[in-house]
């Protein structure tokens, strides 16, 4: 929390030179990520993605769609090292926060507790308004909450259940119609 705010101020005021924060930050961003951590916290991650996209009467949740499994692969294999570190460190923070604040694992929390924890991390990671927020995202990358939300949506829209039952997916459309009435309850297309 403090780090993002502090660096936001640095970007704003230019109070210290780039070299001054590069040492520690550079280490934090480029250290070899603890890839085993998400692997060992599958249940937590499943509960987290389910909080972002919960199931409804006619719609599967992100955990049913296996999005947490996808995120583990995505972080391990695809996202840049800086984002992987932000994500894994954020997940660690969240696990500790849940334990210290509610004395239990995130996945064991009530829906209200889970929402409170997620809200806490959303607020903590919220980018500053306007141009500063853009600079923040550009130079620092997104915070844990926004990464988690991005990855969850990405995984959900491209998963079999998410694309097929959450959104609308047709493997072989066979035709294109550019302007047709939207059917009642029409879901968004999963792919374009």
């Amino acid at each position: 929390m403090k780090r993002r705010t502090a660096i936001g101020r640095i970007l704003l005021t230019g109070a210290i030179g780039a070299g001054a924060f590069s040492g520690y930050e550079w280490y934090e961003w480029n250290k070899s990520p603890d890839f085993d951590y998400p692997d060992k916290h599958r249940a937590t991650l499943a509960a987290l993605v389910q909080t972002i996209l919960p199931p409804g009467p006619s719609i599967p949740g992100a955990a049913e769609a296996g999005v947490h499994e996808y995120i583990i692969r995505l972080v391990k294999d695809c996202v840049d090292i800086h984002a992987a570190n932000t994500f894994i460190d954020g997940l660690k923070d969240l696990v500790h926060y849940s334990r210290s604040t509610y004395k239990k694992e995130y996945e064991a929390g009530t829906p209200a507790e889970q929402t409170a924890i997620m809200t806490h991390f959303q607020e903590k990671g919220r980018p500053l308004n306007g141009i500063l927020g853009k600079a923040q995202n550009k130079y620092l990358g997104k915070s844990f909450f926004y990464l988690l939300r991005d990855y969850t949506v990405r995984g959900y829209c491209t998963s079999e259940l998410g694309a097929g039952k959450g959104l609308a997916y047709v493997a072989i459309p066979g035709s294109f119609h550019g302007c047709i009435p939207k059917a009642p309850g029409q879901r968004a297309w999963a792919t374009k």
Partner: protein
Amino acid sequence: MGDPRQIPNLNTKGVGANSFDAIVVGSGISGGWAAKELCEKGLRTLVLERGRNVQHVKDYTTAFMAPWEFPHHLENTRKDKEADPIQSGAYTESNKQWYVSDSEHPYIQQKPFNWIRGYQVGGRSLTWGRQCYRLSDLDFEANAKDGIAVDWPIRYKDIAPWYDYVETFAGISGKAEGLPHLPDSIFLPPMEMTCIETEFTNKIKQQYNDRIVTIGRVANLTQAVQGRGPCQFRNLCARGCPFSGYFSSNAATLPAAEQTGNMTLLPDSIVLEVLYDEKKHKATGVRVMNAHTKAITDYFARVIFLNASTIATAALLLNSTSPTFPNGLGNSSEQVGHNLMDHFTGSGALGEYEGFDDRYFSGRRPVGIYIPRYRNISKETARKDFIRGYGLQGNGTRAEGVERLASLEGFGADFRDKLVQPGPWTLWMGGWGETLPYYSNKITLDDAKKDKWGQPVIKIDFEYHENERAMQKDVEESTREMLERTGFKNINSYSHAQPGGSAVHEMGTVRMGRDPKTSVLNGFNQMHDVKNVFITDGSCMTSSATQNPSLTYMALTARACDYAVSQLKKGDL
């Protein structure tokens, strides 16, 4: 030279197993056309491809895979991005098999340049953007009028019948608009516009009298053509199409060549140099290295077509030295490798539109909309800050999935319910701009550095200049203005400096021209210096125009083949 088939040969395959009537180097868009045309005209033709064979349909292994069947749902891995820093910018998990490995095929960027390559049978015809636009006399006369570079040795009337010819075979969908500076093709039915695109088209018509919006003209088949297609609107073209729904060498020209019985296709065959006979002043054949065994074989023919792609063809010429041509085959003009062009991209704008909430679309259309060039096309549209112009490509659709993340707050049930609804209608446009031919934009061979086949590594030295920068600025301003004047909200415009090569429209290293002193090829794509060598890939382009160039390569190839065969028959080659 004498008929090589008369030379006795002990090869068990029979007399002159290494001799052909014609050799085509490369099997991409232009090489495929050369193969088809030469074979259909009765020439026994050897087609050499440096990459692996790709059999149509059978080798499109990812074509039917759903996003979730890929381990990373189409994202590239860090490992891929590290191994292929350039190509991974163009490929995804679904089609990286059609791109070279950067580490296996290094090149030197003297300035940043994205050289996107596909070494396989079919080349980049598997992954091309498929948009097809004719050039016009606005383009063919431009260099002469502006007094820059050299004049094109042809005019629209020379190539028009050949556009007709290749379009009839390839199949181009689009809408006739009757514009003199963007002549209509022979069209298959156009694809439909979305609600927002139609609205935008109508409003542009009300607001401006110098420009129109039309549906993209694209080599996707809205009707079956010669047993190919029609397009199934999956928008997965770049994986290879099992429905033959778009034009590729693999789907169209190579099967036609094969059907004649005249084609010998050799994959895994790297052409090292063109062999030159000092006495006869002709090329006699090519020296080929097997990509796997590295065994070297010479092949001979009466006529040779080079279609290795803009940069590779120039490199092949530079690597073909002889006492007559110490600086590269047919390079008495010293133009080979120079005047490299691409289309600049990186500027445009996007906006949202209120309305049509009760309307949607169905299917995945493999093309967007097009705004033909509207700068410097008349006295009224003349600009002081730049010459030439740009075309705009765009797309109007509803924001969906990850595209909505920036505008949706929070998480949970409300967030989910909004996310799975179609989002606001949005429209994006970006510029593809003409790049002038600069002698200083060039490729050369590195004397010291060799690739794994012992061939000199190519150096690319390319940058944009003031004319492109001024145009790029105008693209951003103009696209923003159009969205503002047609009632869009939340408009964002952008302008990024993209490295050369990003449009994957490399052109111009072996240019056509009237004068052998200042150009390499004549008006029939025939080398001024070596009459039995023809070059019809992007390297032949004298200027870049604004249009996506592949259709022009097709037409020039068919025309050059017709000319070459008529010259052969007359005994002039």
